[in-house]
């Protein structure tokens, strides 16, 4: 049975991608899925060779046919998003402002406007040294999109089935909204990465509620736990109150910085952080892979 394991955090910058990149090495040829489509980074460490590129049409936008336009300006009056401009005697659509609401299309007396498919991003099926990587890039100014993440996850499952790979590891999107929920829905197990700061605990609570909503088992990792042991204790207390398992506490370790600078996974080096990440992965394998 295929297992899908997602790494999320609520707060950004707690170490999701650092952990994911190490798991890519420890899991022995998994399918990796980078679901942070706004600002993907996993490819920097995994160095993929792109095999397929797919276009993601996530929205529609207004397009103006100049030869039919009677220059009445009604489109500009009805647009709530200030997406219709006028310059040098012609009306034009500001693509970044258009929400595709259809108001101008409905009101245009000349039939000069229509909604057309708009390219919202691209996603890629790639090959790395450690197995397949599915990743994506959301277009500039596009709304954060659970839809594109859904395409990445579908592709990851397809590749896993084709190549008979038993595990998909998902580097999740930050936050608790649409991209984050799209990263975790129907996964087998969720790893929540926290850090001992006030915002770390605050956002941990929010993502835990989100994962609970989806009824998925989860475990917590406290990254850089020793930079603030008071806050780490607060996180531990919270986890006890909520009956959440703590999978491990990764120490602050200069080797992580070295690994990041070299664009290598932390587990490529011997260090305290590396040892703890290995222990965490063994636990995850025992819990999630045998469930």
């Amino acid at each position, binding site marked *: 049975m295929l297992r899908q394991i997602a790494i999320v955090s609520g707060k950004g910058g707690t170490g999701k991608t650092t952990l994911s990149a190490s798991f890519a090495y420890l899991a022995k040829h998994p399918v990796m899925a980078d679901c942070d489509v706004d600002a993907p980074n996993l490819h920097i460490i995994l160095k993929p060779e792109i095999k397929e590129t797919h276009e993601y049409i996530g929205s529609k936008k207004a397009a103006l046919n100049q030869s039919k336009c009677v220059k009445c300006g009604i489109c500009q009056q009805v647009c709530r998003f200030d997406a219709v401009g006028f310059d040098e005697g012609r009306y034009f659509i500001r693509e970044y402002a258009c929400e595709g609401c259809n108001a101008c299309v409905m009101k245009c007396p000349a039939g000069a406007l229509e909604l057309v498919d708009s390219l919202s991003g691209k996603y890629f099926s790639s090959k790395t040294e450690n197995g397949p990587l599915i990743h994506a890039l959301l277009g500039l100014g596009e709304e954060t999109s659970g839809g594109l993440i859904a395409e990445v996850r579908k592709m990851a499952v397809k590749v896993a089935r084709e190549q008979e790979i038993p595990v998909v590891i998902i580097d999740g999107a930050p936050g608790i909204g649409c991209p984050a929920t799209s990263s975790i*829905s129907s996964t087998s197990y969720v790893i929540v990465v926290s850090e001992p700061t006030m915002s770390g605990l605050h956002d941990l609570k929010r993502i835990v509620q989100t994962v609970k909503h989806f009824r998925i088992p989860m475990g917590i990792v406290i990254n850089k736990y020793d930079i603030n042991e008071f806050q780490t204790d607060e996180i531990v207390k919270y986890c006890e109150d909520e009956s959440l398992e703590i999978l491990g506490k990764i120490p602050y370790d200069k080797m992580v910085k070295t690994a990041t600078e070299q664009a290598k996974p932390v587990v490529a080096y011997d260090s305290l952080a590396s040892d703890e990440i290995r222990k965490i992965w063994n636990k995850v394998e025992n819990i999630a892979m045998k469930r």
Partner: protein
Amino acid sequence: MKVMITANDSSIDSMVSDRFARAPYFIVYDIESQKSEVLENEFLKNSHGVGPKAVQIAVDNGVAALISAVPGGNSMEALKKAEIDVYDGRGLKVSEAISKMKSGELNKIL
């Protein structure tokens, strides 16, 4: 009573979809007549706001229950208002999910 099941494919032998509103197909199954109707999900690739649209499909088809992966927060709100029961169908075939619901073995989440 009609039940809507989210499905990966158009047959009742396919798996219940991993996603609610982004499921490729919705199968509306009538428990009394045992007939099913397959609807293609036209909102599949929309970038956002698909949850409530999928709930609207359920309402328009007069279903009393939904079998699906756990829907997101917005969908759950709409399903609650529409008084549609929700059952967790993760990991099951559509046909298995229907028979488990009939025998009361399926986990009800709303």
